[in-house]
């Protein structure tokens, strides 16, 4: 019996130095050539050794979709589950095994459509999960229907006259769902992607990382405005904790708070308003400003899209609370005695 118990108490530290190669499985990667998923895979495999965790204590859980093939390519433990349910499955794993580093890989359809319920509840519980949400604003694996993040009017095979539904902003949704860590990054910016992943890994509790990811088959160029050097000036707002929120050519634009409504707005920076430029505080207890930042993005043009860590606050982690209750119960009632439990307080004896 001791053996199995020991197994459940392994300490997640790597004994030897690891390299990117250690995290590559022997399986051939089968995404379309040119897919943004390759870049994310390389970034994850590349930064994993830096975490210094024993790779046998790392688990990738995914749902269904192109990105959900991810676990097969990681030489860690992994589960490719069913559509939308990865956060639920990962919740069971993380809450029963605190010695594991559990990562969820999901997409915009998987996480926000069929699995929307599990995503929001994982976030509100603050289970110790790192959720990588690959957002390509399209359904890739089913060959090109619009997704819950597609812009209104999207022409696809299922919406020949244009889609009718307003899209989700995943970052706004996560903040609304009480997320303690929310970030956004882009597949093509390896350095930014890696820094955000590392911040997520360091966060105790649920971390949601939205990764803008190009589907070069069904939605090619969806994020081009954020990648093209010139156009990105208008599109991308890079957030850094403790730094004024400035963007545009030579930081000519900035974000200020409207004194009347309290909302945020983009302004051209002048000598008069420079002192009013908002300083990004990812650790602000109130989610209000992080939410307002997330709303600056225009869902159609992607102008004024903040990337980086929008919110990173500490609050109690579900798995820890659950484990604490188990400990408290033992303290208060003593370790469970099966014989006493079965006997109860109200029994009688029949003599032979």
């Amino acid at each position, binding site marked *: 019996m001791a053996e199995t118990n020991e197994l459940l108490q392994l300490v997640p530290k790597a004994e030897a130095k690891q390299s990117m190669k250690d995290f590559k499985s022997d399986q051939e990667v089968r995404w379309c050539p040119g897919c943004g998923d390759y870049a994310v895979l390389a970034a994850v495999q590349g930064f994993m050794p830096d975490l210094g965790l024993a790779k046998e204590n790392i688990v990738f859980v995914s749902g269904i979709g192109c990105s959900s093939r991810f676990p097969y390519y990681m030489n860690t433990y992994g589960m490719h589950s069913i559509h939308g349910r990865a956060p*639920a499955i990962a919740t069971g794993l993380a809450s029963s095994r605190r010695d594991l580093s559990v990562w969820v890989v999901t997409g915009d359809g998987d996480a926000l459509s069929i699995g929307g319920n599990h995503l929001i509840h994982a976030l509100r519980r603050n289970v110790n999960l790192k959720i990588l949400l690959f957002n390509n604003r399209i359904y890739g694996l089913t060959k090109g229907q619009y997704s819950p993040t597609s812009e209104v009017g999207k022409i696809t095979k299922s919406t020949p006259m244009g889609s009718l539904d307003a899209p989700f902003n995943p970052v706004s949704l996560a903040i609304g769902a009480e997320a303690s860590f929310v970030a956004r990054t882009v597949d093509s910016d390896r350095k930014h992607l890696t820094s955000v992943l590392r911040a997520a890994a360091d966060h105790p509790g649920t971390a949601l990382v939205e990764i803008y990811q190009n589907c070069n088959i069904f939605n090619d160029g969806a994020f081009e405005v954020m990648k093209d050097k010139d156009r990105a000036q208008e599109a991308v707002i890079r957030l850094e904790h403790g730094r004024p929120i400035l963007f545009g050519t030579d930081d000519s634009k900035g974000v200020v708070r409207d004194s009347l409504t309290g909302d945020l707005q983009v302004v051209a920076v002048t000598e008069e308003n420079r002192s009013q430029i908002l300083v990004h505080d990812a650790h602000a207890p109130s989610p209000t400003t992080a939410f307002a930042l997330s709303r600056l993005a225009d869902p159609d043009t992607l102008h004024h899209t903040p990337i980086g860590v929008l919110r990173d606050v500490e609050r109690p982690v579900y798995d820890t609370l659950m484990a604490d209750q188990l400990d408290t119960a033992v303290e208060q009632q003593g370790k*469970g005695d099966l014989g006493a439990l079965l006997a109860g307080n109200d029994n009688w004896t029949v003599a032979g």
Partner: protein
Amino acid sequence: MTSQVSSPAEQADEASEALVGGQRAPQSATAGNGEKEIRRLDRVIIRFAGDSGDGMQLTGDRFTSETASFGNDLSTLPNFPAEIRAPAGTLPGVSSFQLHFADHDILTPGDAPNVLVAMNPAALKANIADVPRGADIIVNTDEFTKRPMAKVGYETSPLEDGSLEAYQVHPVPLTTLTIEALKEFGLSRKEAERSKNMFALGLLSWMYHRPTENTEKFLRAKFAKKPQIAEANVAAFRAGWNFGETTEDFAVSYEVAPATHAFPTGTYRNISGNLALSYGLIAAGRQADLPLYLGSYPITPASDILHELSRHKNFGVRTFQAEDEIAGIGAALGAAFGGSLAVTTTSGPGVALKSETIGLAVSLELPLLIIDIQRGGPSTGLPTKTEQADLLQAMYGRNGEAPVPIVAPKTPADCFDAALDAARIALTYRTPVFLLSDGYLANGSEPWRIPEVDELPDLRVQFTQGPNHELADGTEVFWPYKRDPQTLARPWAVPGTPGLEHRIGGIEKQDGTGNISYDPANHDFMVRTRQAKVDGIEVPDLEADDPAGAKTLVLGWGSTYGPITAAVRRLRAAGQPIAQAHLRHLNPFPRNLGEVLKRYDKVVVPEMNLGQLAMLIRAKYLVDAHSYTQVNGMPFKAEQLATALQEAIDG
């Protein structure tokens, strides 16, 4: 409900039940001299009935506890509406609790009550059709006023218009007497009135010589934070007892001796199906030396298991109340991957939602218990009533060829053993397993011989610790789908084990390596192998109870065990041979089932569905099984089943 079908102590106790109501006094009737008469009875069926807010379930539970500790054999049938509080005084709001207790071994909660306690006109109206002539009816006369009677369509008072002439009616102003008894307590009228169920309990406890200390202890513990209310309830309880002793209307009290011969030596307690099931799960975790993990979503009539397991965190039990049914089983499956003994509890509608995840568990080949406390369906159906109509859902309710073993307990106490058995199969064969209980077993209760902990089966499993396969070049590797040649189970290697990192998923896997494979021949092989694994699960042979070489076999499964056995006793007592067998394992069936069935000219299958087991039997064994079915939300009555079986034999 303690005996086996083949018990030598078998009695035809229920043979004359319900033909004549009232309380039989087959043994000596001893009249006292000036004292009240005490009659000895061999068994009694009492039904407490009142409004949903009247506390009838609590009253029934307490009477049951008193009866259990007195040493009678017993069986109970709680029956309540799905609404928490239907409009007061209406027929849909009636809640009842039936209890059958005896000085010998009994099998069912009884067909018809000898005593009906009716707390209001609705309770009388809703239950009178079940009460045989000559039975005792105790009514709370305070409620038989114009409005409450009009509410349920009584134009004249049934207490006065002669319509109850055939019964022994005991009119008792329960409310007034309770308020009177509690006037020292300074409670409001409304507060005092609430104790009238305890007055009724006291009266019945006197009538049947029940021990009372435990009820008083129970009330003081229940209202520990409100000592005044506790004492008021104790006072009402005692007042009810004293009322019985002093009033002339109750001239007779009854003794039902302990069922000393019905019980093998041992220590006993009374237990409901859901409690026994919860304990079985905790015991399974301990016997497997694995932490127990429950992922669940509240649903009637399964929620009590979630509640119970949540109370036992000091056993290392983790309970997770998920956002929905799908997340409940999802979390359980995740915990199974991590090396927990994982469980999800639900009822039929929840199973429907969990189907896709059950299919994933079949594909992942991880141990997982799916507990389905069946209720009336389809859809929301009858949440608080019983049915056995999820058998085919458990058997086939998934896409693709997705075989899942099925285990079914036969009595409330048997839920304990069934849980251990389901865990054995799940852990040994690395498979999801269905446990099909139902509302009748879940809420019904009976005495249970408490097992010694060292009698429980050893369920320990070995997680895989190292490579299990050697490649042609001599490299040692881990193959997650390389099977045990005996059981066909695949290795269980949990995260945290160095060197065994592997990926599993719902896409078809290559035999051995577990890598994604779309190869047609491999898929054909894997489908057949998963089926062969389930088909090969070891289950005990079926034993038919057939003392007289009968030509007809009655075959049941699950909670119909009690009523079927009672019906079989009736037939045998009347000289009619009949064989009986009861299935615990529905998938796979016992190896000898086909051979047993073919021994008989006729096979009758009573079920609380439209013939689901009968269909499986017919399909698999080409036996002309005769189906006898009932789907009214209630268990079979022994009398009715006996008639049906006799007709099947004759027909």
